[in-house]
């Protein structure tokens, strides 16, 4: 009976952690979608969002949730790094293209990839 209760509790906790993980990434994805839709998006807004996800990746204490949010961070971080390293100057179109390839190869989710590309397209100089 005790064993059964433990198993049920464990299963419930595991299912909960998975649900939380899904919620967490869903929230971040929704935020990413909002940013991608904004016509007035600035480099500053974008960098703030990337940094915020970075902090969440560092601070999350539940392993499964941390993996989810960190993985999400590494899907968006290359385009963040591109602008962070350029600092006050805008990256060139070539640099944007290059970072875009590495960013795409780090993506594990097609919808996130599309949103990040849309943001890069908005912030990067035109050809």
């Amino acid at each position, binding site marked *: 009976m005790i064993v059964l209760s433990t198993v049920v509790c464990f299963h419930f906790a595991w299912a909960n952690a998975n649900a939380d993980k899904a919620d967490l990434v869903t929230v971040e994805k929704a935020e990413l979608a909002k940013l991608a839709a904004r016509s007035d998006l600035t480099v500053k807004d974008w960098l703030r969002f990337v940094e915020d996800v970075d902090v969440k990746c560092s601070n999350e204490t539940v392993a499964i949730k941390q993996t989810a949010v960190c993985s999400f961070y590494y899907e968006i971080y290359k385009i963040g790094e591109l602008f962070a390293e350029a600092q006050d100057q805008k990256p060139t179109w070539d640099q944007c293209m290059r*970072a875009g390839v590495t960013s795409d*190869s780090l993506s594990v989710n097609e919808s996130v990839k599309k949103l990040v590309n849309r943001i890069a397209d908005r912030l990067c100089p035109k050809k």
Partner: protein
Amino acid sequence: MRVSLIFQVLIFSLSIVAEGNQCLQGSQKNQRFKRILETSNAYLIKEFRASTGFKSTQGGLGCSSGNCSTATKPLALPGAVGEIPKECIQASLKRKVPQISHECKRTPEGNWRLIEHSKRSTSKPCFDEATVNYTHYITNKVISCFQGLPMQNGVTEAIDPAVLYSKLNNESGFNFTYSYKGGVGAGQLTGWAVQEMNVLDPRRTKGKTVKGGGRFILDNILKSNNPQCAGLKPVIENDFKFKYHSPRQINCEWTSMETGWARNLIYSVGYFSFLKHQVIGKELKKRAPNLYKDPELLNLLTLVGYGPKGSNRALTLIRTLGLGGSGANLASIKSSLKQEVYLKNTAGKMAEVKTIAGNSCRLL
């Protein structure tokens, strides 16, 4: 009459044994690789013939004495760096890899003709001793060219032959003809790797030529004074004439013995270095500067990057395994990394090759 029949059966059996001895893989009837090594004017093959004293033989692996490495002249590699021994490559080629093989044939007009061999084909080209020698020669030439090659962040590259051996053994078992839609040739190159190493796919850049993030590695090989890079330069120079080499569309550019084998290896090792230093290493240096100096850890993380979730998984592990923390237990972290999909697969295939090689491969 009966004696004659027994004699015929004996001769037939011996011929089967002989065939088995002559070809590690493929059929004795298809001696394309041997002919290429004997007659090709490709720069690397001419260099191989000249520097190893290559002579046309009647085949046979010539390893009955148990010391195959003496069959080729040793490469002048720095002692501490070492090489992948021929015995190890030979054992790897004996491993069964269920893949489709692509044989490349030059037409009289100079174009490539691709012949596809299914897994069960009985007419694949023979991998005889000369082919093993050439594989040994090319692999170690590329490794020694990369040793000391400058990376962008002030470090120089140091390729661990044991790591590269485990990777190539896992990807293709050193068979440079293996390809499928997920990867091409010895290093099982992907479109991502090719774009990073040379130029981006023009469909992405509206036809404009844009160099990839790892292209500086090819540029540095061209600038290198290392004599081991000399023979590789014509392959790279030739590549720069093309706008984009898709591994799927021009398969022979990645799988032919003449230049495809070397090109595939240069790009594969180059992409490994790119991931190791410019993607995974860069992040590791930012989060845990001291651990970037641990070559074993850096290699393990890079190998994780070849698994199902790619480099994203390796980068995520830098954070979730607490690599940046002050109390990071390195031994336990490395042991966790070894449980990752790609590393477990690699270990499994190294176990297979160990059974084949016995004690003959010193990297196992």
